[in-house]
């Protein structure tokens, strides 16, 4: 119905790339170059991955359900990380986040129950649920929107992978 979402827009790429590069440089500026311990490596990998996802989500803004869900997740995670360091507020924010999580979960469950019936009608038995787990924010979507979001999400993932590959290639030369 919406033809614009079918095109992997170059604008998406142009929005994602500088953000990601900036994030990467920031990360590299922080840590030493060749960390020895696996734990540090893991942390660094994690940071890069989060940066990639974050920059992608920010490039899409809030136009898509999955980007909103991803941003929410990232923010809540960073919130939790902050509060873990500051013990005073940990209780408050953790309760807030947990409450939000439970609310979201219950709403998702409700909607999930509502939508699985329709999924069965259309002919997708358990796959729609699996898709919902994979696509961020997919729990709250009916099948129609879910497919739409999946399409856009796949496009964004492909651009992300392309950009990352190009960066890697560029630096490997």
């Amino acid at each position, binding site marked *: *119905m919406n033809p614009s979402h*079918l095109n992997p827009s170059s604008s998406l790429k142009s929005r994602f790339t500088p953000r990601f590069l900036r994030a*990467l440089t920031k990360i*590299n500026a922080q840590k030493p*170059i*060749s*960390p020895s311990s*696996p734990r540090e*490596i*893991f942390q*660094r*990998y994690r940071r*890069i*991955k989060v940066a*990639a*996802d974050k920059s992608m989500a920010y490039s899409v803004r809030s136009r898509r359900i999955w980007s909103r869900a991803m941003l929410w997740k990232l923010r809540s995670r960073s919130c939790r990380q902050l509060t873990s360091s500051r013990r005073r507020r940990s209780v408050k924010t953790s309760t807030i986040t947990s409450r939000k999580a439970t609310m979201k979960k219950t709403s998702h469950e409700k909607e999930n129950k509502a939508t699985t019936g*329709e999924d069965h*009608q*259309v*002919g*997708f*038995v358990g*796959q*729609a649920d*699996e*898709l919902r787990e*994979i*696509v961020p924010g997919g729990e709250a979507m009916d*099948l*129609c929107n879910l*497919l*739409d979001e*999946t*399409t856009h*999400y*796949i*496009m964004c*993932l*492909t651009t*992300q*992978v392309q950009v*990352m*590959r190009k*960066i*890697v*290639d560029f*630096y*490997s*030369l």
Partner: protein
Amino acid sequence: MQPCSREMQAMNSLLNQTQQIPLQDLQSNGHQQIQNPQFEPTSSHDDFLEQMLSTLPSCSWSDLKSPWDPPKSDETGPSNPDNNVGFHYDEILASKLRQHQINGGGGSSPATAAMKMIMQQQMMLAGRTAAGGGGGLTMPLSLGSGAAGSHHNDIIDGSSFKSPNHQGGDGSVQALYNGFGAESLHGTSQPSNQPQHFHHPQGGTTQAQNFGATAGTVMNQSQAGGSTTGGTPTQPKQRVRARRGQATDPHSIAERLRRERIAERMKALQELVPNGNKTDKASMLDEIIDYVKFLQLQVKVLSMSRLGGAPLVADMPSEGGGDCIQTSGKGGSVPRNSNGNQTSSTNDSLTVTEHQVAKLMEQDMGSAMQYLQGKGLCLMPISLATAISTATCHSRNPMINPNNSSSNHPLLQASGEGPSSPSISVLTVQSTTMGNGCVDGSVKDAASVSKP
């Protein structure tokens, strides 16, 4: 006249709202069947006739006739009120008739045939209101033809006219139109017959209405049981005209819309996802799921590659969904990748790796393999390594799989060490490898090329 007209108005309005005429279909079918239904209305709808008759109680026919008998006497009066009443049915049609100056042509059959052709076209234009009256006005055609049995046919025609979903109804609809044309002719040109005609059309309309109700309900796949209320299809709201062979129930319409939207989206997804040539929806969705997982894994792998391979061995196989991906063998060049700093050269880092692996191997082979895997490397017999290197060293981008594009760097850097072959055939099921670095037998002679 007044009660008669009131009731007729009511019925007319009801009938108007229940019209579902696929005019296009009628028009397409019209010209062929123009002649036939006129003379042989029984030909194409015997089965429908039996269906209708079986569902309807036969008593309803006579019951419906009775209410109209008293007002019949009123109709014997001046012809003007009859004309006015008749005008309700075919006001549009009659006006068109008069436009074409049809006078007294009802008697001669060739004239009526020609009339009917013209009337049909006009009927297309006239639309539902005219056709509403036509449901009842087919009676006179049968009266005119003098066949008592054809009464039922025309009623059936009216009912099938109201339920165009019925496939065999087209011929009957033509009969309807023809009858309508004849009736209008009769009505305008033969005032003497009008009382009779009005009696029957009124009875016919109610009958047709009931038939329509039953037909509608039958079409909507509910047992009508000869309902005489006729309220089911005659809801005073705008009904969506259904396409042929499809129900008009709002729920089914919504369902159909939903399914169409889903099908659209699946098609769009099909273009995006490789191997999207599956016709089955379920398998297509499986492909989609796998592809999304694969892309997410690629992102993880790429982000890891910038670090030079993280020993996330435990996570890797579980993430991969079964297919293990060898991360890019950029062990040596990673420092260069991520920040452009010229650190220890490739050889140094690889040597370090080798030492590490050697150490690990002394302790435990498993951990050594895991370490290698984390680095994105694998062990390979020398012979195989050299074979692969000779095979792939020529092209800069050995793309066995078109999805891969970045196997340059391992080639360039690992000229001495070992080939970096995409070796997709060797290592991966899905095409995620950025290129595989292989530690060849300088470290050890063995053995296992890790992974499927």
